[in-house]
């Protein structure tokens, strides 16, 4: 029986994958046979340790790299390394992200620039480099951008974060149209409220308030998002491109 979730012979690059949604995604892709490139923003030893965990757990080749999405030179270097090591790339998961809430009137220039560099500019640079490697293989590929429900609906205190994630959605839809003829699919996932280090950094009352707005009665997990990534990375979604898949448990903002 053909396994449509089989990712053997495929190479996946997951940004921001030493923890949170990225790490859950890296593990699930490796579990399904993918060779995985793990990327952290500063700690090479941590990324390499995660890569070793993947190889030990599932026997798949894995590589750890440092790739800060604010540093274009590191992004270029990462793709050179992937080219030298694997000669191909089949899946990119743009998972690195920052959350820095501020009310309008209290948004600093530094916070604005940092959020856009990590959440929007970095993913564009990754997508551009990844698409070239995917085209070269002739087999196409799948690019999955982790957006956010906030980029769709907006939320008070999250004008910058919401704008950066809305940019990711615009990127997804445009890139999907441009890359479809080359067999490269581009989709976004819009997670709702997910239990990660990033959301745990919120004040307790705000965490509880957001959790209470979820119709399914529980906060989402990194694994919930990773499973949606697996769907979009695999042949199960072979005719799906340009979509924004909500993974939010029926969250209302």
């Amino acid at each position, binding site marked *: 029986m053909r396994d449509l979730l089989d990712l053997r012979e495929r190479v996946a690059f997951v940004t921001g994958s030493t923890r949170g949604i990225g790490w859950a995604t890296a593990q699930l892709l490796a579990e399904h046979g993918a060779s995985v490139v793990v990327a952290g923003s500063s700690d090479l030893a941590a990324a390499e340790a995660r890569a070793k965990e993947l190889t030990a757990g599932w026997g798949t080749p894995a590589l750890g790299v440092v790739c800060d999405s604010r540093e274009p030179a590191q992004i*270029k270097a990462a*793709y*050179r390394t992937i*080219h030298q090591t694997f000669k191909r790339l089949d899946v990119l998961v743009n998972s690195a992200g920052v959350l820095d809430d501020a009310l309008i009137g209290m948004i600093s220039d530094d916070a604005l620039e940092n959020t856009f560099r990590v959440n929007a500019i970095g993913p564009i640079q990754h997508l*551009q*480099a990844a698409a*070239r*490697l995917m*085209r*070269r293989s002739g087999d196409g590929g799948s690019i999955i951008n982790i957006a956010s429900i906030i980029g769709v609906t907006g939320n008070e205190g999250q004008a910058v974060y919401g704008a950066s994630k809305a940019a990711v959605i615009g990127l997804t839809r445009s890139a999907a149209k441009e890359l479809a003829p080359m067999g490269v699919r581009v989709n976004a996932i819009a997670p709702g409220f997910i239990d990660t280090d990033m959301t745990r950094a919120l004040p307790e009352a705000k965490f509880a308030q957001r959790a209470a707005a979820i119709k399914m009665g529980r906060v989402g997990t990194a694994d919930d998002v990773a499973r949606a990534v697996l769907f979009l990375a695999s042949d199960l979604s072979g005719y799906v491109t340009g979509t924004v898949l909500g993974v939010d448990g029926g969250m209302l903002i």
Partner: protein
Amino acid sequence: MTDESTLRKAFVDSLDIAPDTDWESLSYRGIEEWDSVAHMRLIAELEDVFDIMIETEDVIDMNSYVVARKLLGKYGIDFA
């Protein structure tokens, strides 16, 4: 040193141009065949033929055959 015929063949194959093209005057958008879509095909061909990954700035700057020959030197590809 690499034989320049390898570079010319990459241009011929990816742009679908004649082998006796005037190489010194060949430029991006200077002929109908070398448009933006063909440019990305050319870049992919050059990357495959020479087993390199060309940086985005060089993809943008590579606006003629002469420039391409020079830029490839950055990647250790020098022509005899």
